[in-house]
């Protein structure tokens, strides 16, 4: 060892910094080595913390850096009519989404994207905000962009980091407004819906059925989206697919609808507000269900704009309302089916019973007036002429409780259970109801009004169809059904919907037969002559329902063939004034159309005459 350079005897130096100066150079080097050892040791501890203690955590971060999960959208199932004609299909399209974690410069990218897509910038920001909580999942900002937009986005993908284009089919309704209330439409899943649907794989921005069978059968129409795990580099370029899970397309739905009949119904209602329900009384299958005015569900297929939505929802004609199921009306004389059946079953009338109609009925201080004096009528003629006086007498005779009971047995006052959302139940009044709702006792005049379907009685067209079907089929209350079968994506039938019996009328067959004779007379020689079809015996009942909101509603409810009913048709024309004039011809058109189809089928069937 070299002798230390600064050698002083400790303590001999009078200056205060003497001890320091006594330090040997090698001691200084040693302390330097110690300091370095401590510093390197600190780094080692830090590395232990990062790599060993938190290694798992950082490994996950590294994975989320490089892995992207792409959804491969599964096409929604098709919707077909009873003969397999496609009513709702899909078409390939592209959607544009934002991937929040890759969107480094939203201030630059979003205005640019707004210009390219034509979507307001504020809407893009709102979407981005929604996606913040799940930065690795793309949030859709626009569906169904054209190929030109896709090209522009792909060309500029480096400037527009965080914008992704995905293939996603778009729903197509080839017939536009025809059948729109049955088919329904799609809309973006709402926050509340999402809460319930997330376990089934729905995510924000997904489309979900909002009305019609699209909503009713959303679960089976919707497929399971596939997933692709892709490795990307720092620029977001996909490098390779690491894992792929195939999706499964949705199941297809065959409806009971006969599209020819449906189109006929819509054509008949064109320009008027109203509804048509056509039903097979033997099975409950709904062959046509129309509501007018209608709307074009295609407008919803890519997410409806706020302006269009407001225009539709705020339209005073209320095109979104399904008048066949979701709106209740005064039934007017159509309700005489209930009164007549009650009187026959309660033996207050028989086909041969005679009534004197002077054109009015005196009740205490009041006089109830009919449109005309029918003179002496038997029961059948009274039905055919829709004689109010006869039904007043019958109603007064059986009383309001019996009327309400028979109305309930025919299914009024409760939903039909038709497989369409948002059905209303209508109303069958009672003493209790009037006292509760109006704070007044039940007057005898209320019974008279109820007997002819006025006053507090409210029914939906589909309820009328169910009730008339029960009359036509011998007394079985059947659930009206729009769906007929479910097909697998490969086209195999996986489920058939059979008739659902909801109850039996429990009336004598003679009573039913007497009522039906009256209904036949309505079309043969009464108020419903306009519903008559050459070569087909039609039975039915007209109605002109007084309403406080304008001209009377026109009703016709009928079935054919009269002796072997296979089709029930119910027509409602809002403010159509006279059932026999406004509604019966609509029904005739449907019966004719149907009958033409039946004859065609009969000729086509091999071995038939």
């Amino acid at each position, binding site marked *: *060892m*070299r002798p230390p*350079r*600064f050698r002083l005897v400790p303590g001999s130096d009078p*200056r205060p*910094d003497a001890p*320091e*100066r006594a*330090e040997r*150079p*090698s001691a*200084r*080097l*040693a302390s*330097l*080595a110690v300091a*370095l*050892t401590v*510093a*390197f040791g*600190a*780094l*080692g501890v*830090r*590395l*232990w913390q*990062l*790599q*060993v203690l*938190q*290694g*798992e*955590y*950082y*490994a996950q*971060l*590294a*994975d989320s*850096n*490089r892995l992207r999960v792409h959804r491969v959208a599964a096409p929604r199932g098709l919707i077909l009519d009873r003969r397999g004609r496609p009513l709702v299909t899909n078409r390939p399209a592209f959607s544009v989404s934002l991937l929040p974690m890759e969107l*480094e410069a939203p201030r630059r990218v979003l205005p640019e994207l707004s210009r390219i897509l034509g979507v307001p910038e504020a809407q893009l920001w709102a979407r981005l905000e929604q996606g913040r909580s799940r930065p690795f999942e793309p949030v859709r900002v626009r569906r169904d962009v054209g190929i030109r937009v896709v090209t522009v986005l792909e060309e500029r993908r480096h400037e527009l980091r965080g914008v992704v284009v995905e293939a996603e089919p778009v729903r197509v309704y080839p017939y536009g407004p025809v059948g729109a209330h049955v088919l329904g439409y799609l809309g973006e899943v709402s926050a509340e819906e999402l809460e319930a649907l997330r376990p089934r794989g729905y995510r924000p921005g997904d489309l979900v059925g909002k009305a019609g069978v699209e909503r009713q059968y959303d679960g089976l129409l919707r497929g399971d989206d596939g997933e692709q795990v892709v*490795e*990307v*580099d*720092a*620029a977001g370029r996909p*490098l390779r697919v690491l894992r792929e899970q195939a999706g499964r397309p949705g199941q297809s739905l065959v409806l009971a609808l006969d599209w020819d009949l449906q189109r006929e119904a819509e054509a008949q209602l064109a320009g008027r507000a109203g509804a048509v329900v056509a039903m097979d009384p033997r099975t409950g299958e709904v062959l046509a269900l129309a509501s007018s005015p209608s709307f074009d569900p295609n407008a919803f297929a890519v997410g409806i704009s706020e302006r269009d939505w407001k225009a539709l929802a705020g339209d005073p004609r209320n095109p979104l309302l399904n008048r066949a199921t979701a709106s209740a009306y005064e039934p007017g004389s159509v309700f005489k089916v209930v009164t007549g059946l009650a009187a026959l079953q309660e033996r207050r009338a028989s086909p041969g019973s005679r009534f004197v109609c002077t054109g009015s009925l005196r009740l205490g201080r009041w006089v109830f007036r009919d449109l005309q004096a029918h003179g002496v009528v038997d029961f059948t003629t009274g039905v055919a002429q829709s004689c109010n006086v006869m039904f007043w007498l019958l109603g007064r005779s059986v009383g309001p409780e019996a009327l309400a009971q028979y109305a309930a047995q025919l299914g009024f006052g409760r939903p039909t259970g038709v497989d369409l959302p948002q059905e209303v139940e209508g109303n069958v009044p009672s003493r209790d109801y009037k006292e509760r709702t109006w704070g007044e006792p039940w007057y005898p005049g209320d019974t008279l009004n109820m007997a002819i379907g006025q006053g507090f009685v409210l029914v939906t067209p589909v309820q009328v169809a169910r009730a008339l079907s029960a009359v036509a089929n011998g007394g079985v209350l059947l659930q009206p059904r729009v769906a007929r079968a479910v097909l697998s994506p490969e086209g195999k039938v996986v489920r058939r919907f059979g008739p659902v019996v909801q109850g039996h009328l429990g009336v004598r067959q003679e009573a039913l037969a007497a009522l039906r004779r009256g209904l036949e007379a309505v079309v043969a020689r009464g108020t419903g002559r306009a519903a008559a079809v050459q070569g087909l015996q039609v039975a039915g009942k007209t109605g002109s329902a007084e309403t406080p909101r304008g001209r009377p509603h026109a009703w016709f409810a009928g079935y054919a063939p009269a002796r072997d009913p296979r089709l029930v048709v119910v027509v409602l024309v809002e403010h159509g004034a006279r059932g026999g004039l406004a509604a019966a011809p609509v029904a005739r058109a449907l019966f004719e159309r149907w009958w033409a189809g039946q004859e065609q089928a009969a000729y086509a069937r091999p071995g038939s005459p």
Partner: protein
Amino acid sequence: MSAVAAPRSLRRRLRHLDWVFLVCTLTLVALGTVVVTSATSTPDQPLGLLRPRLVHVVVGLFVLAGFAAVPYRSLGQVWKALYGGNLALLALTDLVGRAALGAQRWLTLGPVSLQPSELSKLALIVTLAWTLSHRREPFTRPADLLPYLLHAVPPFVLVFLQPDLGTSLVFAAIVLGMLWAAGVPRRHLGGLVAAGLLAAPLLWPLLKPYQRMRLVVFVDPGLDPLGAGYNLIQSKIAIGSGGLWGKGLFAGTQNTLQFLPMQHTDFVFAVIGEELGFVGTVAALVLFWAWCVRGLRVASVARDDFGRYLCVGVVSMVAFHTLVNVGMTVGLAPTTGIPLPFVSYGGTSLLVNLAGAGLVLGVGLRRSKILF
């Protein structure tokens, strides 16, 4: 010269060769070569920057041998020329240098690009060691420090102006280390450091916005996770995700998928962390630590003060580089843009560090008085 001339004396000197120091140096260079190749490998060019790196290594090994062979005192004797040349080169760089990453650091001479600030570290070490070794009296008053601080200030300022904050801090570390070894009283050095820290806010306005941002995000990287904080975050993810054993060479996703920025230069340590794991990072740290401690051992047995100060200066330089660079990649130090010695890709830096290692080896070789 004499080293080459006398085989007999060469053998004698080699008895004094610090083999551990040399092996540490070579292992670090080899590790760097492998990791740089991994960090720059692409599907098109699987070998990445291996070829230029090998050129740097070969040249560097000659430089190392040369600096070990040349009698180190002869460098001291030309200190004035070294000092003047250094200042001239730095000034020239400030004036006509090539800019990269927002700073003028490069000087192009034909096909060769130089970073004069790297060379000036070595020049500072040699010239300061020489002047320090000629002091006869002990340091007693604070004013005694003045000539040596004045010695260091001009190159410091020129580098700071490039701007190269990292290298100016390296200068400070070198000066502090050498003054410490020269026996400057603790109080004076403490005062010097305190004065430097107090003066730091005065330098704040002189910093470029990106330099300020680096200091800000060091405190809170989440402040700008996709901008200035991005490097820090991605580096920590790379190192942490390496775990105990690493993902294997060429298999780090942060590295190969380009999430890690500057992965072959300033952030090369993160590639070691990701691909070789805790085992790899600790091995690298042990190599650096052993290198520094052996370098200090050589300093303690040097035959003269000049040799001792040379060793301390070189160790200070490499140790500061290593601690700050590794500290930066693990989030313990701000981003200053100084490379990892022997490992990072970069010719000038590698040559300077190998030259420094050569100097230390040379001091070690001449520890006995027999041959000088």
